[in-house]
Each structure stands twice: as C-alpha cells, then as structure tokens.
C-alpha cells in the first residue's frame, strides 16, 4: 500500500526537488530522506490527504538542512535565492507543480551515454532502486551505481538543463525520450521480463498524459500495448511461438483495443512517424486474416523513414506472403546483416519453403550460434530437427 503510493509519487517529488534545488544529487538525497520519514510516520499516523505535497515540502526542508551543513556546496546552488519552505506542510496537491516532463528531457539528454539515459530514466521517473535496475540490465550493482553517479556528475558539471528544451530542439529531444522508453520496453519484451515492459508502458502513459499534443508519443504507447498484448502467447513450453501459430485466446484484447484506439487518434491527426507506422503494422498483425500487402506497404514507408536494414528484413517477410519466398529471398540476400540472428532465421525459413534443405540447415545453425535466449534456441533447434 505505502509502496504503491511511493512508486506513484517518486517521480513528481524528485522532479519538484530537482527544480527547487537545481541539483540532482541534493534532490536525490532529499527525496530519499523525505520518503524514509514518510515511511515511518505514515505507517504510524496514516497517509495524509496530500502525500505528494507532504513529501515535496519535507524534501525541501531536508535539502536546506543539508546545504546549511555543507556551505561550500550551497554557494553554487540557486537554492539560496529561494524562499524558505514553510514550516508547516500546508500545501495541497493541486498546488504541486508537475515537472515530470522536464525530468524526462533531463534523463534522456543526448549528451548522456545511452545506457546512462536508460538507467536514469528508470531511477528518476520509474522510482526503481539501483539494485533493481542493475538486475534488469544484468550488470553488477557496483557498475550500475557508478553509471548513475557518473551521469549525475555530468548533469551538474556540464550544465545539462532542467526544463523544456527550446522550440527548435524539441522534436529531436522528444525523439530521444521515445527511443529510451522503447529501449526499456524491448529489453523487457525481448527477454520476457514482463516487469520492465510494464514499467516502459507505465512511463510512456505518463509521457502521453504530459504531452498530449505529441502523436508520436501516443504512437509509441500504441506500439507497446499492441506488442505486449501478445505476450502470453509468444512463449509456450519455454519455446518461442511464431505469430501465425499463436493461440489468439491468450491475446490481451483490452490492450489491443486500447492500442488500436490510440493509433486511430494519432493517424486521424496526421501522424505518420516511425512509431505510428510500427504501431499500424502491429495492429494489422492482430487481425485475421493479416492484410500482407498493407503490411508490406507500411514497411516501405518505415524504410523511407529509417533506412534500416532490419526494417527491410521485416518487409521481406511480408513480401514472402504476397509474392512468395523467392522474391523475399532476393531482398534478404542483399542485406549485410550477418551478425543479426533474425537475418539467419528468416533466411532459413525462406530457404525451407524453397526446398533448399541444405541451405536452410546452414542458416538455422548460424541463427542458433547467435541466439540470445533459451526460448529462441529451443525453437531453432526444433526447426532444424524438422528438416
């Protein structure tokens, strides 16, 4: 119960304290202290009516206390020009500014390393602990702690701003935020770690709420929901199940409907960016029968937008359904994706359909060498055995 409140409040409280102190370290420490005090007091006296405001005001007091103890630090902070926070926690929730959008832009600033952006976003906006993030990315706690510390140090030393980016920077900066969220989602989705995928969905929901005028953000949320709707059907008995073999009764229709509705709204507003197009593809793939010519056309559009060879590989899969495996293989063989496991499993599948057993066998073996999860390995091993 308390844990849920904390999780919901963390990002807003932390954002408010970054804004107030102008320093991510001081804000982090003050927020943690405020939550520790709350854990003790609320467990005893019950949760106040204004938990967010209570935490922010308490955090402000803690930050000021720390700066009084540590004058050297204080001279460098804007805090000293700030009005003192009131002695009583009288602020109500509605007076609490929501600066989480600014926090998204801060954590996903392109001057930070990609992995640091991901870690910071999960820490600052998701409220995940350092050990939790370390586990999610399969690195030691020590490594993750260093990564976060280095990122916070750079934010301070390099003057990475806390605010909404200037108008001409906005599109690129929003794209940076979306790509971090998508990365988190894929990390959870690819490795079947539902908690991380769910966290990405939760954070993207918040972003869509904060930036309702950004259809690409809605497109990304739609894409995540549509992919996630098939989660229960993607793995059976520890083995990957291909789309056309999935048990549709296991699909989450609520998520499909929500994703479809978000997508329709984004399309109606004229959005045609990469996430919207990918969401449209995912939506088509939940229909029966699948409109493969439409899927191929959407991949064409996505190729124009991204110029990515991986997109071209996916387009080839759609082309195989429309024009047959030979046309698809001609596309695939022109791609330089030797280190990519799906390149080989796709080729293997096409060669199998063309009755080139030896070629298919070699391609499945290469895909097996590159497979990253047990579920993939099992699937590929079975396919290889069926040849």
């Amino acid at each position: 119960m308390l844990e849920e409140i904390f999780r919901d409040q963390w990002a807003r409280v932390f954002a408010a304290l970054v804004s107030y102190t102008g320093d991510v370290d001081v804000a982090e420490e003050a927020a943690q202290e405020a939550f520790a005090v709350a854990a003790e007091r609320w467990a005893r006296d019950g949760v106040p009516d204004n938990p967010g405001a209570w935490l922010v005001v308490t955090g402000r007091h803690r930050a000021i206390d720390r700066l009084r103890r540590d004058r050297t630090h204080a001279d460098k902070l804007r805090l000293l020009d700030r009005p003192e926070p009131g002695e009583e926690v009288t602020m109500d929730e509605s007076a609490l500014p929501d600066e989480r959008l600014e926090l998204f832009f801060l954590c996903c600033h392109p001057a930070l390393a990609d992995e640091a952006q991901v870690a910071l976003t999960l820490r600052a906006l998701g409220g995940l602990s350092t050990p939790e993030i370390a586990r999610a990315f399969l690195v030691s706690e020590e490594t993750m702690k260093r990564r976060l510390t280095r990122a916070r140090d750079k934010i301070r030393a390099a003057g990475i701003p806390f605010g909404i980016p200037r108008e001409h920077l906005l599109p690129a900066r929003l794209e940076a935020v979306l790509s971090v969220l998508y990365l988190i989602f894929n990390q959870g989705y690819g490795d079947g770690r539902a908690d991380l995928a769910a966290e990405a969905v939760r954070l993207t929901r918040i972003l869509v709420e904060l930036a309702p005028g950004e259809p690409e953000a809605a497109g990304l949320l739609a894409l995540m929901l549509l992919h996630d709707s098939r989660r229960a059907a993607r793995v059976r008995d520890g083995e990957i199940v291909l789309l056309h073999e999935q048990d549709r009764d296991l699909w989450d229709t609520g998520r499909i409907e929500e994703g479809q509705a978000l997508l329709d709204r984004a399309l109606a507003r004229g959005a045609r960016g990469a996430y919207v197009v990918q969401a449209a593809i995912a939506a088509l793939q939940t229909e029966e029968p699948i409109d493969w010519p439409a899927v191929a056309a959407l991949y064409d559009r996505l190729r124009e937008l991204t110029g990515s060879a991986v997109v071209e590989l996916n387009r080839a899969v759609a082309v195989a359904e429309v024009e047959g495996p030979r046309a698809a293989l001609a596309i695939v063989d022109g791609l330089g994706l030797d280190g990519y496991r799906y390149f080989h499993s796709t080729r293997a599948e096409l060669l199998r359909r063309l009755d080139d057993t030896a070629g298919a066998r070699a391609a499945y073996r290469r895909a097996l060498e590159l497979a990253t999860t047990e579920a993939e390995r099992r699937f590929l091993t079975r396919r290889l055995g069926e040849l």
Partner: protein
Amino acid sequence: MRYALLINERPGAYDGLTADERAAITAEYVALMKDERMIGGERLQPAETATTVRIQGGRTLMTDGPFADTKEIFGGFYIVEAEDLDDALELAARVPAARLGGSVEVRPLVER
C-alpha cells in the same frame, strides 16, 4: 556557465576547395567570434609546428609534433559564456570544422 569549444580538424579538410569557399568558411569563424556569448578564442598554427614536452627521470624530453598522432588535429578553441549545455552545444554545431569531417568537443570550465 563557461565552456571551451575545442575544435578538432580533419587534416586536408580544405584541400580541393576554391579560394572563395575557403574565404566563406573563414568568414563563418569570424562571425562566430562576434556572437555575444563569445569570451575569446584562438586559432593554432598547424600541427607540424608543435613541440611536445615531457619530463622523465628529471630530464626534459622534447618531441617534434603534437602529443598524439590522431586522425583529427586540435586546431583552435573558443571560450564561451552560455546559458547551459544546450546553449553551448548550439554554438558548437555552428563551428565549420564540425561539418568538414572534424569535431568540436564541448568542455565546461572549472569555475573558480
């Protein structure tokens, strides 16, 4: 905040350019100097004119040339007073070397 914009040039970036094209690029560098955020800046002589000094075992060792043989050569710097990193990065992106195969490193200064 104050930042140094450290300009690294690709050797031969100007080869094959006409005199007019070179003059246009020089004009861009001069125009940047006029930006209100500029505190100062200098252009260095070519890397061939460098001498690198090291002290080893109490002896001063000198080598002809820059300290590292890299694909890019440090060619000059600006010192700017910017609002924040975004502001400094925007100036850095306007340095011609950045689009002529070189790069611009943006480094905050230690505030005394």
